């Protein structure tokens, strides 16, 4: 995974709450067996509407998404994170994220920056008054800078550390393989098994 220290890019205001993963990428795009190329599915229903924010010239190349509360609810599909990243997003800012989406983002390298809803409103206003303006997101200091506006954001400490180090989760766990083996050795015999008994 690439290291994430800070990012500056065009911010896009998505004035919606409850942006569920079926809106981020509909199920029809989940049939692929590859890990890349999901950008065409991102917000596919909404992108048919000319007035949708990402269809406006100023926001077309956005890499920081500012959305309403409960972003990423619904399905566990990591394709939602891949679609956002394949499109070019590096950061999603919201006042509340769904748990699985937040976890998936941390694994794939997309930063979910949680801010107060009041700050989301301020960022929306700023981006609507200055279409195409850039937003800077600094993971080191946990701050978002948009023009004169500086707002703090929350991110899980462990996810932050992993993102800043660009560490692969599986290798981290495999450092503790001995612990896993010890645990396995003391599991009761009646625990479920999928082998044919």
């Amino acid at each position, binding site marked *: 995974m690439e290291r994430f220290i800070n990012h500056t890019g065009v911010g896009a205001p998505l004035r919606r709450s409850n942006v569920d993963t079926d809106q981020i990428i509909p*199920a029809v795009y989940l049939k692929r067996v590859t890990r890349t190329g999901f950008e065409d599915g991102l917000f596919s229903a909404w992108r048919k509407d000319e007035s949708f924010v990402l269809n406006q010239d100023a926001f077309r190349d956005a890499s920081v998404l500012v959305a309403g509360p409960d972003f990423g609810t619904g*399905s566990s599909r990591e394709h939602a994170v891949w679609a956002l990243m394949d499109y070019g997003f590096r950061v999603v800012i919201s006042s509340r994220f769904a748990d699985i989406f937040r976890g998936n983002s941390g694994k794939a390298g997309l930063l979910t920056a949680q801010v107060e809803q009041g700050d989301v409103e301020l960022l929306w206003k700023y981006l609507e008054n200055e279409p195409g303006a850039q937003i800077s997101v600094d993971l080191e200091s946990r701050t978002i800078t948009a023009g004169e506006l500086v707002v703090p954001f929350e991110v899980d400490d462990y996810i932050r550390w992993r993102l800043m180090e660009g560490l692969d989760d599986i290798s981290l766990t495999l450092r503790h393989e001995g612990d896993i083996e010890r645990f396995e050795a003391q599991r009761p015999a009646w625990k479920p098994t999928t082998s044919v008994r």
Partner: protein
Amino acid sequence: MGKTLAEKVWQQHVVRSAEGEPDLLFIDLHLLHEVTSPQAFDGLRLAGRRVRRTDLTLATEDHNVPTTPGPISDPVSRTQVETLRKNCEEFGVRLFPMGDAQQGIVHIIGPQLGLTQPGATIVCGDSHTSTHGAFGALAFGIGTSEVEHVLATQALPLKPFRTMAINVDGALPEGVSAKDIILAVIAEIGTGGGQGYVLEYRGEAIEGLSMEARMTICNMSIEAGARAGMIAPDETTFAYLEGRECAPAGEEWDAAVEEWKKLRTDDDAQFDAEVTIDAASLSPYVTWGTNPGQGLPLSANVPDPESFGDDSAKAAASSALEYMGLTPGQPLKEISVDTVFLGSCTNGRIEDLRAAAEVIKGRKVADSVTMLVVPGSARVRLDAEAEGLDKVFTEAGAEWRLAGCSMCLGMNPDQLQPGERSASTSNRNFEGRQGKGGRTHLVSPQVAAATAVAGTLAEPGDL
């Protein structure tokens, strides 16, 4: 201080705990399906890793499978299913493919095999893994990166979840189902209300439910944003499990039950949050909007967006009504539907089919309505046919299909057309979920059956 059920199960699975780091949790059972696993197997191949515990891993084909006889016609869907088969063969994972008597929706087959057991940690690359919590298991959905992680290590680094008690006090009134309870809970706490929490459903109304009804409730915990839902195991749980193919037997059964009986929240345990619902206040529920929290009693009217508290909720309600094509003040029971879908991991079990069949028996599906009945697994289908339920449905004019996820998410050919409206026993009424432009009302099997007959949203008493 005592511990909650969720905390007990968590503690029994901690492989490693260190200050400032997530706990490393051992996973007892990993379920796979074709949609969220291909990239995980690719990751293993790239890193030269194997599946650590094939004996704790099981795969099935469910999301893409057609519910009419014959092969998969969509080449992309077919490739995905074939990829799962190749991966399972290469890595030695047991698979129930289409046509196998054990095939079915991943969350239906775990319990019916007796693999889903109290106190187990269960994961799957699917958010409705919360279903298995009905047995007192700690079961939750994961993303594809985590699928790869569990395949490689049989463990997951996780921060402890918070706990929330959902008390459903008193006896459930006649005609109110598990689906109505959970829709009412989500309407109460909202789609984000459970975020970060494991919900433990408790109280007289929950204790009185069958295992299948408990699964319906735990299944939709994710729609309240929760990581998992759980119900403490009891005699109902043990009676359901005893004798099933993968359940322990003989002395092992006795040892297991002895452990399972300890899986109860201690009297002096503290939940991080608590919600209480009076069962007597519940009635059949239906969603009117585009998220599962936008639900009301079936006897109510379509709400006015202006009646919602904050601007964000007003805007959400207003755009939901526009998408759904509904007018504030319109009685919900006057909404006519084109399609009724009975099935899914929420309501695709034998008791769901029985409940709907009881309503529809001797009646006819309205001319304006197409009704699809999709059993959750091949075994549910066979059991239903042995009871003659298939005949009840087909004689009423409904379509009797093969097992799979089907119209819950429309990855197979079962989809709504733009503007079409459904009453669906599934779990999500998101925009376009059941087909581009489709409009979904979530309901119980009983309401689905009554609606199919009436042609408008209805409960059995209305017929």
